[in-house]
């Protein structure tokens, strides 16, 4: 357990000055939340870079490199003017969120990650890379190993590898702890963003409503990291569109870039957010809005180049895509009915749908960016079942509950915030039509 906690602490420490540079007006909750996200992102980039350069990852080499990153980032952060942002006031309701997090910490660390996709995909790659001293291209390229989805990006496996480096050997018993840290980071970000627009009581209540969806039950998979990076990224872009705040743009772009390095759905999310930002932002600023997401694409690019260079296959794109699409379109009704019947936490989605009738139409219109982005992402996720090379029923059973959980955090946030604004009769903050 000590090694997992030390690894988390190192990631937090490395990410702290980076988070400070990215958003100098960040309050302490935002800093605390984004520090670990930027830290694990930096560890991923560093370990991928070492592999590309052919330098074996040892704790000495990675430790020195991280120390250098920390020193340079701290020097830059110190040159910024002092942070005057206020720390959001806490509320007694926050105790419920802390209790949820405590329950999750016990859940995620009750045993070594047990899910099939941990020891057949994410943990497997982490362990193989740890054994090989970096990304094992031979393993990824082997035709016998296609089951582990060679094309999936490597942020999660390389961070699991980093935890093993800190421990001195691969020991998966406490690897669930890193998922607690990802979830806690997202909760801190959400509490900070909610406090920008709502009273302490409503911000705490909204955060409590979203706490459980932030904490994935799929311990050991990439979902925990993807939900943390993806939801935080979407909500920072929302904040950036509302406030025209450069720091929120940078946060959103970088976190979405890291989301694209967690899973292929993160890459789809980046596309969905870019389209939604173009459609829903101020008409006079479509190009500037989209251009501000360039760091996300810059972060997504290296893995796309590497996987193309190593010819790592993508199962959805393999074979005759159009044949599968036309075949599955004939069964569209059955596929959509299957998705509806397999919807995870249906009552929560029904409550969100009903809640939309309780808020003024103008409040829904104000949240169009997130709702459009999630709508496009939903279309991507459903579309994947129409081109899947696998049995559709099996594919839906194996992935649909996880995929819908990815959408839950941003959607619940905007609906709960609109309800809170309606209750407090706050007019909300419209997306600006011109620069501040």
């Amino acid at each position, binding site marked *: 357990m000590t090694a997992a906690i030390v690894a988390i602490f190192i990631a937090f420490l490395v990410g702290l000055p980076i988070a400070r540079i990215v958003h100098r007006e960040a309050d302490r909750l935002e800093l605390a939340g984004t520090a670990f996200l930027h830290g694990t992102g930096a560890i991923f980039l560093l370990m991928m870079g070492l592999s590309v350069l052919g330098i074996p990852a040892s704790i000495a080499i990675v430790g020195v490199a991280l120390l250098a990153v920390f020193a340079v980032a701290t020097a830059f952060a110190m040159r910024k003017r002092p942070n005057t942002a206020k720390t959001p006031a806490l509320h007694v309701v926050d105790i419920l969120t802390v*209790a*949820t997090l*405590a*329950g*999750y910490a*016990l*859940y995620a660390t*009750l*045993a070594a990650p*047990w899910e*099939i996709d941990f*020891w*057949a995909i994410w*943990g*497997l790659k982490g*362990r*193989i890379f*740890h*054994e*090989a001293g970096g990304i094992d291209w031979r393993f990824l390229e*082997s035709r*016998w*190993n*296609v*089951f*582990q989805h060679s094309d999936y990006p490597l942020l999660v496996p390389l961070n699991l590898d980093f935890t093993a480096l800190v421990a001195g050997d*691969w020991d998966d018993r406490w690897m669930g702890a890193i998922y607690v840290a990802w979830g806690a980071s997202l909760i801190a970000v959400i509490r900070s963003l909610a406090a920008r627009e709502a009273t302490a009581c409503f911000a705490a*209540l909204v955060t*409590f*409503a*979203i*706490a*459980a*969806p932030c*904490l994935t*039950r799929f311990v050991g998979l990439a979902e925990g990291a993807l939900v943390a990076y993806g939801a935080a990224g979407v909500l920072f872009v929302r904040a950036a569109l509302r406030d025209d705040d450069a720091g929120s743009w940078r946060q959103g772009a970088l976190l979405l870039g890291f989301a694209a390095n967690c899973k292929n759905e993160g890459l789809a999310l980046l596309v969905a957010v870019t389209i939604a930002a173009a459609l829903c932002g101020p008409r006079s600023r479509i190009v500037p809005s989209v251009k501000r997401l360039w760091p996300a694409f810059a972060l997504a690019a290296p893995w796309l180049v590497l996987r193309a260079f190593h010819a790592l296959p993508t199962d959805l794109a393999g074979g005759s895509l159009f044949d599968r699409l036309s075949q599955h379109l004939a069964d569209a009704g059955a596929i959509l009915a299957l998705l509806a019947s397999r919807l995870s*936490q249906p*009552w*929560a989605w*029904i*409550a*969100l749908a*009903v*809640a939309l*009738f*309780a*808020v*003024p139409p103008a409040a829904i219109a104000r949240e169009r960016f997130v709702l459009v982005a999630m709508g496009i992402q939903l279309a991507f996720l459903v579309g994947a079942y129409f081109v899947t090379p696998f049995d559709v029923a099996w594919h839906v059973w194996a992935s649909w509950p996880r995929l819908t959980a990815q959408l*839950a955090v941003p959607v*619940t946030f905007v*609906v*709960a915030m609109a*309800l*809170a604004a*309606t*209750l407090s*009769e706050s007019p909300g903050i419209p997306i600006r039509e011109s620069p501040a």
Partner: protein
Amino acid sequence: MTPRRALAGLALAAVVATRVDPAYVEMLIGDRDARAKDFVPIVDVHLPQYARFLAEVRSRTAAGDSIAIVTPDAAPRELYPLAYYRASYLLPGREVLPVIDPQGGAPIPGNRAAARYVAVFGDSAGAGEAVWKGEGGALYRR
């Protein structure tokens, strides 16, 4: 209070209530030890001795060795891919080879012949020099 605000209050309460995850509440007030018994890899449930068998195989092979994984003929066919994936995880550094295509289910006799070792789970019968025979199976060098 306007009807819209009353409805918004009810809706927020519903959103909060439906998002509470009982699994995490159970961790705080329930029997965690009993729950922990459910948190085991599915292969270890169906093949209880498999992880110990693979630990024996790992201790008798070296990094870089190729090992073909064989499970009993009597075991359900659906279990083979999982057994193969689990072996890949528990035998890191080795080249783990399937003798049945995990995707299609077709036999791959070439892998059995090409591997330096054959790890036979649940049965001690195999071809080649027996490196180890014990509880759970046997390891043969070809």
